[in-house]
């Protein structure tokens, strides 16, 4: 966390909450995210972590409070350019089945009128970055494996060189071997690109492996915000210890 304190503020949330009918899904909470941070939102199902990342992606408008991006309220921003500045990856990739991998990746660039050469160069560069065989690019999503689909989805998210990468349980549906490989690849990619990453996961080991800062949520409230060691050594309340303990078996031989 200390390494990025000198970086400019990217997101700042004040009193942000989300209410669906009579049900409060999130907040109200405050949160600040600095440029270049790699942050994991973690917590049990229904804790509000997915709601939070969807608010950041501008897919839903918060019921209360203000989200600022580079100091400007999201509600005042033009959503088109804003979203193009974000890369967004969801659990099943969200690839369009009627487009080949390459066309999925280059969809926005073509929409924005990039030159063919520029698109091709970027495509090759990204395929190398995410370790996807170039021959896979001509395939339709249905003909790709789950891991390959997530790599393509990541390429699509990175195509326009966004400032921020939002990952909503990106590895949640993969089997352990592929998941392990992708976690390693993702960490390399984050380090290579140095961009801001906000990751939603329910897996503490994955959070610890991919991000320095972990934000733990429960029932829409922020419970603890800190490094992995803080969570283990100085749990904010008994729930944090219980959450950590529940995953201890896995952690015993790894990050612990």
């Amino acid at each position, binding site marked *: 966390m200390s390494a990025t304190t000198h970086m400019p503020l990217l997101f700042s949330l004040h009193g942000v909450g989300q209410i669906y009918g009579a049900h409060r899904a999130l907040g109200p909470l405050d949160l600040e995210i600095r440029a270049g941070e790699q942050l994991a939102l973690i917590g049990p199902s229904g804790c509000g972590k997915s709601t939070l990342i969807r608010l950041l992606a501008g*897919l839903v408008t918060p019921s209360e409070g203000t989200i600022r991006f580079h100091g400007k309220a999201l509600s005042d921003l033009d959503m088109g350019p804003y*979203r193009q500045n974000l890369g*967004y990856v969801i*659990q099943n990739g969200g690839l*369009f*089945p*009627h*487009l080949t991998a390459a066309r999925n990746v280059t969809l926005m660039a073509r*929409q924005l009128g990039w030159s063919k050469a520029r698109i091709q160069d970027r495509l090759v560069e990204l395929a190398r970055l995410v370790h996807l065989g170039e021959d896979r690019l001509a395939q*339709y999503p249905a003909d790709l494996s789950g891991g390959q689909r997530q790599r393509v989805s990541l390429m699509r998210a990175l195509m326009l060189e966004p400032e921020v990468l939002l990952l909503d349980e990106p590895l949640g549906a993969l089997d352990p071997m592929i998941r392990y490989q992708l976690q390693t690849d993702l960490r390399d990619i984050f380090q290579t690109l140095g961009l801001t990453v906000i990751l939603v996961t329910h897996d503490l080991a994955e959070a610890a492996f991919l991000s320095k800062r972990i934000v733990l949520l429960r029932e829409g409230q922020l419970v603890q915000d800190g490094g992995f060691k803080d969570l283990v050594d100085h749990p904010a309340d008994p729930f944090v210890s219980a959450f950590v303990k529940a995953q201890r078996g896995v952690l015993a031989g790894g990050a612990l």
Partner: protein
Amino acid sequence: MMARLMIACAWLFLTAAAAPPKTDDRAVVIASKAFTESVIVSELARLSLREAGQQVVHRQALGGTRIVFGALKRGEIDAYPDYTGTLRFEIYAAAKATDPAALERLLAQNGIAMTNPLGFNNSYGLAMQADVAKAKNITRISDLVGRMDLRFGLSNEFLDRGDGWPALKAAYGLAQKADGLQHDLSYRGLADGRLEVIDVYTTDAEIAFYDLKVLEDDRGFFPAYEAVFLYRADLAQSHPQAVEALQSLAGRILAQHMRQMNKRVKIDRQPETAVAADFLSKETGQTVVGEGNAGLLGRIWQRSVEHMRLVALSLTMALVLAVPLAIVAFRKPHLGGAILGFVGILQTVPALALFVFMIPLLGIGAAPTIAALFLYSLLPIVRNGHAGLAGIPADLQESAQALGLPPMARLWRIELPLALPTLLAGIKTAAVINVGAATLGALIGAGGYGQPILTGIRLDDMGLILEGAVPAALLALLVTGLFDLVERWLTPRGLRL
């Protein structure tokens, strides 16, 4: 892929637009009502006009009195044959016109004129076997008085009507009792000698077939249903020779001629055109050729062109409206309910009623048929288009949004391609329904495969019915096959199973 969609739409539209409308503006349009006698009489007129050097078309069996008379009033047709009784008791029933001059005044108010009577009177009458009548020395209805040896068999309708048997008995002083029976059976009763006297329409084909004698109505009891041609009054200025040719038929078609021609068409199954041509040849002493039937293949080809034009035009129009409606219903859910409800209600209107509703708005012929088919095609396309769009998985819709694609690009590049298979299935349904429903267009003069079906029903001719029904069924199959191909061609490879 979307480029292919555009190509397919353009192709459909061009097919529709390229089919040439075949009506000649300068031709005289003669119509007939939907029964054999009317078709024959109009064929006589068509051939006469043609012999007089006029351009003329005959819209056969256009419909009932209301439809055909309405078409004449609006100037969509120039002439058709009707009966003075129909004018008096049906069309101008409220005016209580009693003499021809009064009828002519009423017609003139609608811009219509009528010819002198053509010669035959198609009203009720009493008939006997010719030989029996001769043997018993009966020629007039008055001769029946006191002949208690004669058995009467009368159709139930005639027996019950106030102006039927009870009034006839009173008028002539007849004392006989009469049995009620089915009209078809009464002819057989006469033939095998179980009956001596029955009621008939005076030009029934069976009179000629069974060799019956229609007894003279010597006290003028039965109201006259004299055949005349009604024509647009302005035809006398624009096509004087046509009016002259219609007038030339007056007084020449006698009841026995009409019975004979009805018999040849209804019982001997000869084409109306040939029967009419024979009559004219005999009457004029010149050979009149009934070209009419262009041979089976020619007829089917012409009807195919008419039919496909109805289907292609209505479907193209429906696409142009229904696809945007489906998109609006999807994007604006508060309007969606209203849109789907509205096109749903359109579908509940019975097809026949919808066709007839169109007549006051668009007249007769192809236009009202295309409009009705267009309305009928909306529901399957809107419903499937909406279902296809609404069925796109939420995560894909969100991915498109999260990428920052503008709404139009999202629609064009993502949503429509994903909804396309469902949408195409809806279009296919609409097209197949259209091919079937378009046969009803023949009822209001649009031609197509419905024409021989209607004529076949009228003449009880299975061959003719099949001549329309088989091509219609084949066209439906062809359309299904064609759409399957288009579907394969248009469906993005990633969506093919």
